[in-house]
């Protein structure tokens, strides 16, 4: 940059503002919390210090309501390299390689400014992953919008999808999967959960623990502006009518700078310069510096005047609390500064030595040599509040009797209506706006169970998916929590992958309400049991509370992101039926559970509150059935596989027929009410397809292993046919499946 374009930035000292009760309250600190602040400081804090306490102790950064429960989740397995607590979780995938992944919410910002809110969510989660030394290879996004009829829904879908695509596409990272659903509980609080999966060498992973007294502290990336100040506290406060009027500043993302930052960081990681590295996410410089120093048990001194600034007159308070995007903090080995600087200059990014590590255990901030804040690090982190909030358990509702759930509807009419419902219809309109092919390694594109991404230079691949069924979680959080985990496990299994671990994003309402806290506790308990039973630990995650407007919270939504490995890409499959005459066999038991089903909601019109218990989850059965199916895929014995979930058996068959563009003759005798058999959402089930010659053998094999297996259809024709007068053509089915979303998004075309 030429001299003439360098602008001089002058800093403004924080005005001396008296710390009154109001100022404390505005910073979201309760009177009790403020008492702790005074204890720790031994004096009244100045505004900068108060701001630091406020963001560090916000729900978003401190996990004060959730910590107690998160600790109960299983986080270990022989293949886990790094569990929760770092920027992302890491699992070993063999050959000295590791998968690095995490999911994070950007709910509130996306509601206020859908494009930039969603875009910066994607940017943030990718930084979490490449901070650890991994190159991002796949993105996913789990989206929940309000009911389609709500006046804001269309605008929010449009902006969020464009924002996710805008950032991910520009970065050149394929967005390969996700989920999208609609429900009135999200009318005022949409959920935008973004997940990134990266690939690293297992022996060159970077952590955030600062070490080495005297080592330089380095700032790289974009300059700091007055972006999203108080964003982190905003993300922890319930919405009220005034929220939109206040219009907090939303950050604007700069994916091109992030791309440069990614390449520069990975290049620097190829040297021995880095001691520790941490991205600046929520609460920017404050939380990154506190976390790094805190983990290392060292002090840190930062010269705020050295922080690259985009605007003039920024105060220490603003610099510490800014949430400007595309920035990183690093501790380097002394003497490595020049080598590092060269790399960042080559990538045309800011690089500044802004301080060093000290042995004081304190964070000291200076401007032009004068101290403007001085706080103890450990006491602040250790005293960070942890609440055991009161909670009440959600009782298990009564089981819904199939006879009470619209038994007389023509099955094919019901199918056509269900497959065109907002939750089940094709999300092509969304994922075609995402570059899901860039990098050239996408083997299974969006539209199937899990996406499959090849590991360059190897014969193996990762399978990735995200799932949650909030209506089950609402009906019974514990069952719903377990179900979300097992559904990801089934989705991975259905491609032939061995599931390895999960990340989660816990989206709930106001935890200060005991019933909401009870939903959280229940979901965690269900997840815990499922993870244990499946050897499928949690390695990273994120909590988003206060997703609530005017006292109405979102449906409890513990989104689960699952990652599995396919050790040989020759042995994988997808849901498309392949050859005429092939047999379709259901693995797992069908009992016809219609409680909390989509059939109950969409066809019978039963209100959520009356829809009964969700389908029970039998973890031992999940495991047995899944392992059996994976074995079939590994042996090359089946040529298509799909797990059964939302909508049940008939939807599953329809998905397979549409994907393979071939009809299916359904050959099934009902030993229960037909609609329960066709639309029940019993768990632990898959449909597999094999040659006619192998079908009997497959069923034998299953029977020997005590696994229910039943032939349900034969591939052929151009329709899905139950009987000659009960059939639907593929063309009609496809129109119903594909048209809802585009029609919804462009009503007048």
């Amino acid at each position: 940059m030429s001299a003439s374009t360098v602008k001089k930035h002058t800093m403004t000292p924080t005005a001396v503002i008296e710390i009154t009760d109001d100022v404390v309250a505005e910073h979201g600190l309760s009177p009790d919390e403020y008492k702790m602040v005074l204890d720790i400081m031994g004096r009244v804090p100045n505004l900068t210090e108060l701001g630091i306490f406020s963001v560090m102790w916000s729900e978003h950064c401190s996990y004060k309501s959730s910590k107690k429960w998160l600790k109960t989740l299983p986080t270990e397995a022989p293949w886990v390299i790094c569990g929760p607590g770092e920027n992302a979780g890491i699992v070993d995938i063999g050959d000295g390689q590791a998968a690095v992944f995490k999911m994070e919410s950007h709910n509130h910002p996306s509601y206020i400014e859908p494009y930039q809110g969603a875009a910066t969510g994607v940017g943030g989660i990718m930084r979490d992953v490449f901070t650890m030394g991994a190159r991002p290879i796949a993105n996913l996004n789990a989206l929940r919008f309000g009911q389609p009829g709500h006046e804001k829904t269309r605008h929010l879908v449009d902006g969020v999808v464009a924002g996710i695509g805008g950032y991910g596409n520009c970065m050149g990272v394929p967005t390969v999967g996700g989920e999208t659903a609609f429900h009135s509980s999200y009318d005022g609080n949409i959920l935008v959960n973004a997940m990134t999966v990266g690939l690293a060498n297992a022996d060159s992973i970077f952590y955030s623990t600062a070490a080495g007294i005297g080592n330089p502290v380095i700032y790289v990336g974009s300059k700091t502006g007055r972006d999203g100040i108080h964003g982190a506290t905003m993300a922890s406060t319930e919405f009220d009518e005034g929220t939109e009027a206040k219009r907090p500043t939303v950050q604007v993302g700069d994916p091109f700078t992030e791309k440069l930052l990614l390449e520069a960081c990975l290049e620097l990681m190829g040297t021995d310069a880095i001691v520790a590295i941490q991205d600046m996410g929520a609460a920017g410089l404050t939380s990154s510096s506190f976390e790094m120093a805190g983990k290392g048990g060292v002090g840190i001194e930062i010269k705020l005047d050295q922080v690259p600034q985009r605007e003039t007159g920024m105060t220490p308070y603003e610099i510490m609390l800014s949430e400007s995007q595309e920035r990183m903090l690093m501790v380097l080995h002394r003497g490595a500064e020049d080598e590092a600087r060269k790399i960042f200059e080559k990538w045309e990014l800011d690089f500044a030595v802004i301080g060093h590590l000290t042995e004081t255990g304190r964070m000291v901030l200076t401007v032009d040599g004068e101290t403007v804040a001085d706080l103890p690090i450990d006491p602040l982190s250790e005293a960070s509040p942890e609440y055991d909030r009161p909670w009440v358990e959600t009782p298990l509702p009564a089981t819904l009797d199939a006879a009470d759930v619209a038994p007389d509807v023509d099955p094919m009419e019901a199918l056509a209506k269900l497959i065109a419902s907002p939750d089940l219809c094709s999300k092509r309109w969304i994922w075609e706006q995402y570059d899901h092919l860039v990098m050239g390694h996408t083997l299974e594109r969006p539209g199937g169970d899990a996406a499959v991404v090849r590991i360059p230079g190897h014969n193996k691949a990762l399978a990735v998916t995200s799932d949650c069924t909030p209506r089950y979680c609402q009906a019974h959080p514990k069952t719903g929590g377990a179900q979300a985990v097992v559904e990801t496990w089934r989705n991975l299994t259905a491609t032939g992958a061995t599931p390895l671990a999960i990340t989660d994003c816990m989206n709930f309402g106001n935890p200060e309400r005991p019933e909401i806290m009870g939903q959280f506790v229940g979901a965690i308990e269900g997840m815990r049991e499922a993870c244990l039973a499946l050897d499928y630990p949690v390695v990273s995650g994120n909590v988003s509370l206060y997703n609530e407007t005017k006292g109405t919270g979102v449906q409890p939504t513990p989104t689960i992101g699952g990652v599995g490995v396919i050790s040989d890409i020759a042995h994988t499959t997808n849901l498309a039926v392949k050859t005429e005459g092939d047999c379709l066999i259901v693995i797992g038991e069908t009992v016809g559970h219609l409680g909390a089903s989509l059939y109950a909601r969409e066809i019978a019109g039963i209100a959520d509150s009356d829809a009964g218990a969700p389908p029970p989850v039998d973890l031992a059965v999940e495991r047995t059935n899944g392992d059996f199916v994976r074995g079939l895929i590994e042996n090359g014995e089946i040529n298509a596989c799909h797990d059964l979930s939302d909508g049940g058996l008939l939807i599953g068959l329809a998905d397979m027929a549409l994907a393979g563009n071939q009809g299916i003759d359904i050959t099934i005798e009902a030993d229960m009410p037909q609609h329960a058999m066709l639309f029940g959402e019993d768990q632990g089930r898959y449909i597999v397809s094999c040659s006619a010659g192998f079908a009997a053998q497959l069923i034998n094999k299953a029977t020997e292993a005590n696994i229910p297996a039943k032939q349900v259809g034969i591939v052929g024709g151009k329709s899905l046919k139950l009987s000659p007068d009960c059939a639907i053509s593929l063309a009609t089915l496809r129109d119903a499946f594909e048209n809802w979303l585009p029609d919804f998004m462009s009503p007048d075309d």
Partner: protein
Amino acid sequence: MVDALTQSMGAAPQLIWHRETVLPDLDLIVLPGGFSYGDYLRSGAMAARSPVMKEVVRKANDGVAVLGVCNGFQMLTEAGLLPGALMRNRSLKFICRDVFLKVDGANQTFSGNYSSGQVIRIPVAHHDGNYFADNETLNRLEGEGQVGYRYCDAEGNTGDAINPNGSARHIAGIYNDRGNVLGMMPHPEDHVEDLQGCSDGRGLFDGLVEALS
């Protein structure tokens, strides 16, 4: 792109930094896809003014084969090596999906492995692929056989409903008048092995290698 070229050439291509001011002796220059400079201002506009592009233009004028895919095509038009411009898609949305292409003009270097009129399946992934040129230019391109590829359906029919982005005359790729420069929006490198679901793009690279060796 590097993978696809490596597969066809049997050796990895050399990567060149955008600030380079001299190019080595070479047979083929490829400008791959991506979002150079974030596609800020206009797609490919800033990259087209990067130092190395002066050399690319010089080599192209000397007759060296140049292939620009997606952002590379946008750069070639911005740099004036190809006529016209690539505007925002008609839908105003980014679009990533497989399309069918009809091999239109015969060109020894770039379509030697395809027969004229052949239909191939290749993915597109772009926000600005809506090819524009004035009528005179379009007539000249068509008249001189400089239209390389057109969007069509599986049977080779063209039409507005089939055209994914609103391109003038369904153009997906064009040659310069000398035939040594091809710019195209679709990504043949994403369909070079069956594992990717289709290998119709392989022919372009194999043909290139044969023609240039």
